[in-house]
């Protein structure tokens, strides 16, 4: 209660200070929508779950205190006076109070709206009401009559625009709204029609959307009254198109197509006149309108486009802009439909999958149907935009717009060519020229993507060779522009949209994966989910090994890219500076140093090069160690475990025995060669460990085939400490899968061969180490080692006495002071219980063999049964020792 101050003054009276955000945060937990920032601090008792109905940020009780609601003006349900307190009274549940207060407040606003001239007070009231409605995701019930009034005020031509806008905003915010009586049928004013449409389109009702569509098309068909502009209607139409494309009839589509074609192609080429502002200095000047100009200032020689410049614009020029802005969606929606119905025989080259286009043939001399005509005009428009984009803009921002226009123009050309192959040849020659014009300019790189997409879609039909275009795109662009986040996103998107390209392993696309990973390495947060989608398409038996290395080296690649960027930014004089004889002092020097140059080059390669792999990248990883803490590198490192898991999942689907063996050997090798980021290594070990066990399960034969490598790894005590996850999983896999039931080659000799090094390791960590006071090993590893040795003994019963004796010594182990100081009591107890259970089991060798060497499971149920070794152990223990807790002596 004591913290319930509302210290925000009324608007216009002064500052609340920057504390508004802080206070808002105090009040609302989680990601809040429209918090009543700085408005009210909620009473303590009601803070949690502030979003629930009746618990929204709105607390209006402050205003009642001191009798403030007797004031005639609209009071502030959301704001309170400085110093006013919120009373948190337990007998007033929030919901009823709010509802009642909201009703009263709405009544006041209602009175103001119905007054002779709704002014600033009404505006203020509506603004607050909007906040009240918007601040919660649960419904706020407003009186039906009041909602009706809002609609009446919205539609009244006498209402000030600001009030209309606010009414619309409230109605939109409440949508879907049951009390809607709004209709756009009678509205003549195009601006108001647009505003009312925004409310109707927010209802999520197909009928409303269709009605709006009909009304807008009707308005566009007729001549608009004086002073009204279609400019406000086209965006409504575009939105109707998006929400429910089926809202227009075929005839309407034709009518609008005809209009769009005219607006697109025949906008005035004279500048508009300035609106007389009525100011002191303005005088009505009667000047001849000047011609429009290009972005570089030259007088325009052809028709008007969005890149045409004027001091003032005419209405039809505005319509030109809007038409082009919605053109792509219009064509996608309605551009192609007519092909099936309209005089198919009359046209050559329609739907070109059948007929190759005749490039020389024109279609002059016959009037085109509306949609075909729109395509024609649109194509010309795009050609003109491409021509205009070569001009040097006077304003820098127009340069950005030129590039966006170029992308749009190429995309529209692509759509048009898909709909009518007649245009393919013209487009190909135009885009070839465009490509050679912009391919050397990095600032145009994003436009290369739609160009490449165009050639992917049409080059076969046009019989042109576009390999050079793809090669440039996939070789040079990622290598040079990996640091451009927008390009990176669009590039990866392009790859995702064209995954069929990656099925041909010899293709430029497939080969370029090292380049693609640069995007991920540099921009990991926005791209990780995209790469999760893309990675399966990059993987096949030929790329598996190289991609495995790439993934493990991904953070290292980030660091190398960082150095590459910095090296490129160096002035030319310093670039050659490094002394080839001495050892480089910094990473930057090393970048060009002969000692490291080839390693950098390999890591930063642009395409797959399995045969060029250097002996080892270890020196490079060490060199780049200084960058391991950089946030970008760390972010990249965090993505690796996700991709590694996916990698193994995908590879498991196609890998044959030799590939799995190769991977296991690599996995063990690479576990020693990771970039030095402790958390990264820990995560990677975790994934590699569990995946190693999975691979062994997939192909148990690898245990025998790779016994040398496996024994070398599992025989090293140091691996338990540094790579516990891998070690433990490997030891478990040996116990689980080294069995004659999995592989006929698992003879007694083989089992003994595995048994001895593991026994030695367990001996070392349990019998020797306690005295040596070395760091402890994970209890999990000890437990798994005991179980594995027991399993092996059950399969080769000569070993049973050795294991039993070993297990019996565990009591001494857990009691030794050196051990109790390192392990927790719980862990030691678990180790001891497990040792006892295993020992008991070994007392009945035939049972042990049955329990510990389960048959090869083929069903999920069997596998689950097999996984419950502890359960089986406990059961056997209970059978043997009715009194639980009996310890080995």
């Amino acid at each position, binding site marked *: 209660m004591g913290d319930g101050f509302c210290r925000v003054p009324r*608007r216009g009276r*002064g*500052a609340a200070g*920057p504390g508004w955000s802080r206070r808002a*945060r105090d009040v609302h937990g*989680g*990601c*809040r*929508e429209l918090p*009543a*920032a*700085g408005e009210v601090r909620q009473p303590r008792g009601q803070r949690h779950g502030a979003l629930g109905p009746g618990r929204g940020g709105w607390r209006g009780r402050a205003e009642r205190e001191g009798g403030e609601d007797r004031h005639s003006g609209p009071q502030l349900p959301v704001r309170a006076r400085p110093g006013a307190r919120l009373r948190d009274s337990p007998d007033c549940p929030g919901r009823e109070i709010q509802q009642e207060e909201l009703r009263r407040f709405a009544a006041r606003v209602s009175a103001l709206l119905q007054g002779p001239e709704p002014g600033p007070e009404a*505006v203020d009231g509506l*603004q*607050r009401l*909007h906040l009240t409605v918007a*601040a919660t*995701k649960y419904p706020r019930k407003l009186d039906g009559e009041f909602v009706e009034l809002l609609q009446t005020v919205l539609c009244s031509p006498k209402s000030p625009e600001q009030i209309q806008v*606010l009414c*619309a905003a409230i109605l939109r915010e409440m*949508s*879907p709204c049951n009390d809607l009586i709004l209709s756009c049928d009678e509205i003549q004013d195009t601006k108001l029609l*647009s505003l009312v*449409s*925004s409310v109707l389109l*927010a209802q*999520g*009702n197909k009928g409303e959307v269709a009605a709006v569509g009909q009304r807008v098309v009707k308005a566009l068909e007729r001549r608009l009254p004086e002073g009204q502009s279609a400019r406000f209607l086209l*965006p*409504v139409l*575009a*939105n109707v198109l998006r929400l*429910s494309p089926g809202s227009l009839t075929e005839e309407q589509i034709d009518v609008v197509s005809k209009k769009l074609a005219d607006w697109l192609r025949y906008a005035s080429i004279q500048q508009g006149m300035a609106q007389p502002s009525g100011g002191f200095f303005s005088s009505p000047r009667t000047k001849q309108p000047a011609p429009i100009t290009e972005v570089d200032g030259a007088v325009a020689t052809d028709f008007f486009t*969005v*890149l*045409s*410049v004027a001091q003032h*614009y005419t209405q039809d020029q505005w319509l030109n*802009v*809007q038409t*082009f*802005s919605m053109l*792509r969606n219009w064509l996608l929606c309605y551009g192609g439909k007519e092909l099936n119905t309209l005089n198919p025989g009359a046209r050559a080259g329609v739907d070109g999958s059948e007929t190759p286009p005749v490039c020389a043939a024109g279609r002059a001399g016959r009037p085109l149907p509306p949609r075909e005509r729109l395509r024609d005009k649109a194509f010309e428009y795009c050609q003109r935009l491409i021509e205009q984009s070569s001009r040097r803009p006077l304003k820098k*921002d127009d340069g950005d*717009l030129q590039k*966006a226009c170029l*992308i749009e123009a190429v*995309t529209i050309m692509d759509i048009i060519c898909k709909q009518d192959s007649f245009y393919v040849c013209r487009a190909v020659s135009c885009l070839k020229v465009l490509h050679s014009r912009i391919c050397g300019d990095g600032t145009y790189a*994003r436009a290369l993507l739609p160009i490449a997409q165009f050639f992917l879609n049409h080059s076969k039909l046009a019989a042109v060779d576009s390999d050079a275009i793809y090669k440039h795109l996939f070789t040079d662009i990622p290598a040079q522009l990996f640091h451009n*986040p*927008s390009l990176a*996103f*669009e590039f990866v998107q392009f790859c995702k949209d064209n995954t069929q390209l990656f099925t041909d392993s010899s293709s430029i696309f497939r080969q370029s994966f090292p380049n693609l990973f640069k995007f991920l390495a540099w921009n990991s*947060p*926005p791209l990780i*989910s*995209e790469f999760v989608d893309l990675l399966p398409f990059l993987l096949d038996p030929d790329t598996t090994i190289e991609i495995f290395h790439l993934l493990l080296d991904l953070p290292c690649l980030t660091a190398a890219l960082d150095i590459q960027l910095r090296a490129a930014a160096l002035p030319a004089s310093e670039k050659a500076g490094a002394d080839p004889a001495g050892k480089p002092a910094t990473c930057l020097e090393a970048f060009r140093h002969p000692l490291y140059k080839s390693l950098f080059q390999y890591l930063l390669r642009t395409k797959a090069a399995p045969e060029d792999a250097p002996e080892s990248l270890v020196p490079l990883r060490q060199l780049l160690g200084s960058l391991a803490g950089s*946030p*970008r590198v760390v*972010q990249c490192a965090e993505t690796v475990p996700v991709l590694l898991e996916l990698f193994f999942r995908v590879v498991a689907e196609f890998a044959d025995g030799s590939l799995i063996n190769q991977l296991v050997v690599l996995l063990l090798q690479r576990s020693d060669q990771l970039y030095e980021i402790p958390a990264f290594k820990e995560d990677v070990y975790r994934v590699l460990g569990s995946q190693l066990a999975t691979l062994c399960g997939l192909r148990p034969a690898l245990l025998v085939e790779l016994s040398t490598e496996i024994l070398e790894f599992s025989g090293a005590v140091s691996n338990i400490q540094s790579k516990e996850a891998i070690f433990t999983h490997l030891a478990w896999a040996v116990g689980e899968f080294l069995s004659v039931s999995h592989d006929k080659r698992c003879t007694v000799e083989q089992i003994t061969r595995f048994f001895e090094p593991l026994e030695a390791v367990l001996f070392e960590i349990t019998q020797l180490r306690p005295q040596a006071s070395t760091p402890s090993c994970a209890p999990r590893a000890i437990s798994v080692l005991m179980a594995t040795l027991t399993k092996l003994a059950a399969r080769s019963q000569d070993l049973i006495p050795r294991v039993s004796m070993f297990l019996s010594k565990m009591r001494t182990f857990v009691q030794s002071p050196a051990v109790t100081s390192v392990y927790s009591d719980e862990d030691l107890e678990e180790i001891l219980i497990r040792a006892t259970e295993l020992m008991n089991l070994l007392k009945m060798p035939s049972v042990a063999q049955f329990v510990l060497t389960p048959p090869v499971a083929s069903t999920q149920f069997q596998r689950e049964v097999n996984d419950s070794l502890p359960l089986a152990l406990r059961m056997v223990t209970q059978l043997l020792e009715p009194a639980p807790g009996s310890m080995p002596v």
Partner: protein
Amino acid sequence: MVRAVVLLAPGGPAPCRVLYARSFGTPPGTGTGTGTATAGPRQRLCRKEQLLAVARQVASQCQLLQSSLGRPSSPQLPQLPDEPMSLQDAPGGLFQMPPGDPFPERVTVVWLSVLALTFALVCEPQENLSLAEITLRRLAPRLLLSLRLLGPGADVLLRPDAADGLLDRLLPHGQMLFLNERFLQAVDRELGIKASR
């Protein structure tokens, strides 16, 4: 087309806050069980939750980008600088949200962070993203100015009309416009604001 605009304070260590959000129309048929008494509120709740999900994702992307640039985002709001600021170097980005989460269809979100605030456009997947970035760079300073976002007080919450007015000109019904500098100046004249750059 743009489905929605979201303005949020990503909030650094604190949870993000949506300061303004506007959806451009609701696709019909997204609400389950239309016609029942609860369908309306549920549809609205769904719309709000979708925008919240966008906001959360934007906030986290924004924080990750800030940290990768070595600029930890400060929870304090700096004052609006007197001279016009350049948004060329303002941190921003793009990401995609998969179908079904939170929108039924795939969407691309384009965002731009200016001082302590972040602006985001939720675009249809095949949208011209260069144009979306341009639109965002134009909207951001104008919204800052007309909502007095960085000034004292919290006008942003109480001036939906100002934000709507801007969007009606620069992003009418979610339609992004190819406006060259001169067109933009004309829009600014109509809005009665001085060119902010």
